[in-house]
């Protein structure tokens, strides 16, 4: 079964204000889709809408990139994948989109983006967050990406986070 490729989305400004029907659908599906043979029929009945309309709206949201895909998400963190590194790559502009799609499709890459360079300090235009069970695994995966890029790679680095700096709010304790 081939993977449904998400269409590449440009970071263009989105319309302000959600359509009320779209908003209803977004709210009703936050918890997930009902696990039944005809989930959109169930959803449509909940919302008091025609099922064809619900399907059309969800497809349209997928077209616009509001919905990436309808899928199940594995919980990597809970399964031991706690190491991650931000790998950054300098790839020729003419090839970066094709390469970005390939790199993004790798199982262990969670986020893959095109971002602007800031020369001369920052020559990288492709970002890929790489995950593994250990840092060694992450490093091996980065080597795989480098091999995949071959001669198209003009340079790369992997940045690991050392410390979370953000403000701490309430700390939750189990009482």
């Amino acid at each position: 079964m081939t993977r449904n490729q998400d269409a590449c989305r440009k970071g263009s400004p989105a319309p302000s204000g959600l359509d009320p029907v779209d908003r209803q659908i977004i709210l009703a599906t936050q918890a997930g889709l009902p696990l039944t043979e005809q989930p959109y029929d169930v959803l449509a009945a909940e919302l008091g809408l025609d099922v064809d309309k619900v399907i059309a709206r969800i497809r349209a949201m997928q077209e616009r990139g509001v919905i990436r895909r309808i899928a199940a998400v594995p919980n990597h963190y809970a399964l031991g994948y706690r190491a991650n590194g931000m790998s950054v790559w300098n790839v020729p502009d003419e090839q970066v989109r094709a390469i970005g799609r390939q790199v993004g499709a790798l199982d262990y890459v969670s986020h893959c983006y095109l971002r602007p360079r800031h020369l001369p300090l920052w020559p990288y235009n492709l970002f890929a967050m790489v995950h593994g069970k250990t840092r060694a695994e992450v490093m091996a995966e980065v080597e795989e990406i480098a091999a995949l890029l071959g001669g198209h790679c003009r340079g790369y680095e992997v940045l690991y986070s050392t410390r979370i700096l953000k403000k701490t709010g309430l700390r939750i304790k189990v009482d």
Partner: protein
Amino acid sequence: MDDIDRRLVNSLQDGLPVTRRPFDGLADAVGLGVPEVLDRIQCLLDAGVLSRFGPMFNAEQLGGALSLCAMEIPEARFEQVAGQVNAHPEVAHNYAREHRLNMWFVVATEEATQAADVIAAIEQETGCKVYDMPKQEEFYIGLKLTV
């Protein structure tokens, strides 16, 4: 988890079509009826192998802006600047990283135009340049657990 479960786990992460009967194709592929496939998926959810099954939403396409920013802060000023940056409510996820650009944070605003204001304010307050690295294109979001 048997082979069929494994195939389900792998396929479900790729995504299902938005049709009246989205599980039919999957059921055909593994040679089972849809009710049985649904039972297996429920078990996988209960076991915690898969969690949420449904639409994955794109925050930026919903109208908010998320901008990744980086700064190069001299060691002596690091704590002070971190405090100044963190004081902005729009700043999320401020991380120190091992690089000349040693402070990385996300600016999350309700409208895309607001992010530039926040960035300008941070530059002014800290006297340090903010390297704004917004997403120009998104290639793929999601980890895949191939079992």
